């Protein structure tokens, strides 16, 4: 509380701290402006002499594995969210660390979930110093109320990989939950009672962490095929009864929204792609697993059939709706980052055209290119968007943490970035003068689709021309905003944000895009 935090203004006009958790920071310089030099980080050299010749790396339990890894006060321990809200391994690992008696860990999950709210107790007891990773629900509130000792750092999936490669985050011990694994440490997410699909979020940790532990509830004799995580990167294997709650790992069935207003948004998005000529043979798209996105895929599928159009690839989060495209021959491949439902899991485990990807292939800014910029269109959500097309996805309009960034920022690199949103939620207009927290710069956001009309970023004259004369309700963003403000009874009052930073939002290149402030 007493430390003075220096602030600087970045290229987007946002105040950001110059130091975060003891590390100097670079303010956002503009899209594509920051290009660090030097060499990537590397894990310590190891020798196979130190590992059992029979390949059996099993130890009795997580506590032993963590002791053997030399876990000490102040280290960085990482987990991953491929088991989503059903994950048990992260808390198991943190509680084992508490038993060993270590303090002040930095917890580095690829995302946290409400079921992990016990991490609050571990922060209060001093086991965890702070979290760098998405926080929402109770963990988000703990952070925005200013109770966490360090600052939260929110990174995109690609940004997390970049931070590991840059050496900004040095992972001492990675603990990877594996739905199937062998005693050598080869691990797979697409089979087993806790199957979740891809383990891509854990891949960077397996390659760059000093020590890697694989935790599984489905140990198979060597070799575990496929090996999404290679045993050659793994130090220890721990067998447990259950790594997670299957009901919360994947949904049995993902549901398309039934809201007529949201269906209308979804239909507009699909029609926009068709009428702008983006939906053509060999095209590609990405859509998430939200209700609007699922309905969009369903509408697009009908239009693709009507027009006899086939995609070359679609990007998941996969669901039954993407799997149907694959099975009906409407796409050659699914390139899958995470798998949301049972149909998706079954498909990735059995269909060679349904391929697991990682943030490295998909999103990493320091790769020699990545898939995100090769996708023709992406359909995303947001909490708020402003008249300059800047968008917020991490906080509620009142500044409370709502969501992680996920792949959202990385996806903005697509050929056409579409935000699909209701124009207001519970009387709160979605289009506003200035976003509460900047998560995506407006120059990368091309189209905002609402149930009241479609706004195209004036920077995209090509898109404006492409849909000229279409029957779609193309309107200036200011116009939609004014209509919604009339309905809602005027502009919403701006929330009062505090003046103490409690977390920061990183841009994909590691620079600071915005600050989350303590709530008064």
């Amino acid at each position, binding site marked *: 509380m007493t430390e003075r935090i220096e602030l600087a203004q970045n290229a987007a006009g946002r105040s950001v701290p110059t130091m975060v958790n003891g590390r100097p920071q670079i303010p956002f310089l503009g899209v594509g402006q920051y290009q660090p030099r030097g060499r990537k980080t590397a894990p310590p050299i190891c020798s196979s002499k130190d590992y059992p010749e029979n390949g059996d790396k099993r130890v009795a339990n997580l506590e032993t594995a963590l002791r053997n890894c030399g876990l000490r006060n102040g280290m960085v321990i990482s987990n991953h969210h491929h088991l989503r809200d059903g994950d048990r391994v992260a808390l198991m690992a943190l509680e084992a660390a508490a038993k060993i008696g270590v303090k002040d860990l930095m917890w580095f999950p690829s995302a946290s979930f409400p079921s992990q709210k016990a991490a609050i107790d571990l922060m209060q007891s001093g086991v965890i110093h702070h979290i760098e990773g998405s926080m929402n629900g109770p963990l988000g509130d703990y952070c925005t109320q200013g109770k966490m000792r360090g600052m939260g750092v929110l990174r995109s999936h690609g940004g997390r990989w970049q931070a590991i490669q840059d050496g900004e985050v040095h992972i001492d011990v990675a603990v990877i939950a594996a739905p199937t694994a062998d005693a050598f440490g080869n691990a797979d997410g697409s089979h087993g009672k806790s199957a979740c699909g891809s383990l891509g979020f854990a891949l960077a940790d397996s390659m760059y962490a000093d020590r890697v532990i694989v935790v599984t509830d489905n140990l198979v004799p060597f070799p575990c095929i496929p090996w999404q995580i290679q045993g050659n990167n793994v130090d220890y294997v721990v067998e447990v009864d259950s790594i997670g709650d299957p009901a919360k790992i994947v949904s049995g069935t993902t549901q398309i929204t039934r809201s*007529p*207003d949201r*269906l*209308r948004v979804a239909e507009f998005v699909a029609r926009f792609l068709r009428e702008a000529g983006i939906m053509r043979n060999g095209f590609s798209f990405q859509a998430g697993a939200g209700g609007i996105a699922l309905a969009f895929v369903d509408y697009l599928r009908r239009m693709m059939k009507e027009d006899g159009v086939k995609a070359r690839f679609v990007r998941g989060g996969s669901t039954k709706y993407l799997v149907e495209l694959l099975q009906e021959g409407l796409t050659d491949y699914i390139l899958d980052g995470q798998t949301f439902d049972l149909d998706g899991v079954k498909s990735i485990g059995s269909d060679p055209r349904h391929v697991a990807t990682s943030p490295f292939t998909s999103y990493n800014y320091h790769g020699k290119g990545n898939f995100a910029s090769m996708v023709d269109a992406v359909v995303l959500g947001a909490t708020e968007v402003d008249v300059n097309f800047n968008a917020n996805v991490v906080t509620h*309009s*009142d500044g409370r943490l709502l969501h992680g960034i996920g792949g959202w920022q990385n996806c903005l690199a697509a050929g056409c970035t579409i935000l699909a949103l209701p124009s207001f*939620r*519970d*009387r*709160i207009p979605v289009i506003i003068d200035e976003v509460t927290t900047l998560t995506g710069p407006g120059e990368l956001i091309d189209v905002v689709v609402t*149930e*009241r009309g479609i706004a195209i970023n004036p920077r995209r004259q090509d898109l404006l021309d492409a849909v000229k004369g279409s029957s779609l309700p193309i309107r200036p963003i200011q116009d939609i905003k004014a209509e919604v403000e009339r*309905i*809602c*009874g*005027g502009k*919403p*009052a701006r*929330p009062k944000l505090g003046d103490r930073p409690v977390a920061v939002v990183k841009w994909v290149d590691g620079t600071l895009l915005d600050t989350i402030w303590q709530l008064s």
Partner: protein
Amino acid sequence: MSSDNTATTAHPAEAGHHGKDVRSDMHVSIEPRDSGGLEITLESRVGTYYGGSIVSQTRQVLESLGVKHARISIHDEGALPFVISARIEAAAKRAGLGGDQKSLPEKVALSEPTTRDRLRRSRLYLPGSEPKYFINAALHGPDAIILDLEDSVHHAEKDAARILVRNTLRAVDFGGCERMVRINQSPMGLQDLAEVIPEAPDLILIPKVERPEQVSQVDRMIDELKSRDRIERPIWLMPILESALGIENAFAIATVTPNIAALTIGLEDYTADLGVAKTLDGRESEYARTRLVNAAKAAGIQAIDSVFGDVGDLAGLRRWGEMSRALGFEGMGCIHPSQIPVIHEAFAPSQAEIEKALKIVAAFEEAQERGLAVVSLGSKMIDPPVVERARKLVARAKAMGKAQ
């Protein structure tokens, strides 16, 4: 006259809804008192953004109702301003405050008056006590929306729904949709009229009509209210026949006043009256429906079909709609927006029909120009009724955007 808050008649009351699953509504409790001014407590899902505005609106509404002293407690779930006014007014009225005063929200511009024979393929029912459906209803493009005060509103909510529907007619822009209200049966229906007619709805649906007198009673009251408020635009009537007796009297009902634009049928009540099950192919109501179509046509008005209750069965809806059009109906009711495009398709003439009709009309126009009494197409002579039917079909196709 404004009430004077005397403790003899005023008592605590509440109105509206709140809870986790409630959206775009609010719950208001009001406790009248003799002094101390207005004391307002607010809990709102949108408090950060609109808390101040809700409190000042509450104050304004109560002042316009002449309420000077009361404790008001509000649980708001994101209600829009016209809903806020309605809920506060309903609570105040239930508390015995406000007398005959109304607190009317700002009025949006009225759309053009509607015509007697306009397109009425689809009319979307909106329960009169569920404000969350109102604001976006027109976006889904029905030909009409119905603000329902009758069967979808619980008996205990009739008074509050009436105020809410009145405010909705004033404050919500329904674009090109015809604005319809389904009132209750008399005598409650007459109270409904007193509240909604000043807001000039385009059409009133009268439920459970069995005798012409039921319609003329409503018609007279509308006339009185219209001349009192100097409303000049038409307010059409659509009687709903929902019993065997109503069907027997269809023609007499259809001709009782020139303000009737259409007859429609309520199949749930009709089949119940007959004591038969309502089936997917509708054999049990075929007589009633054809009789109604015949009576309507004889009276020179539209015949409109009932609703199709299974929202999930769009294919069944499509079949029903096509059958209904074949019988002579010109539209039906919808209970979910997803039914609208299906109904529009079902009631649209086919491309072949349109083309044939266009040819007939062209031949007719050519004959007119050349001063010929007989219209012929190729080697066939065309009778005048065929020409008339073709002209109607072309006009409808144009209105639906199916022909140039």
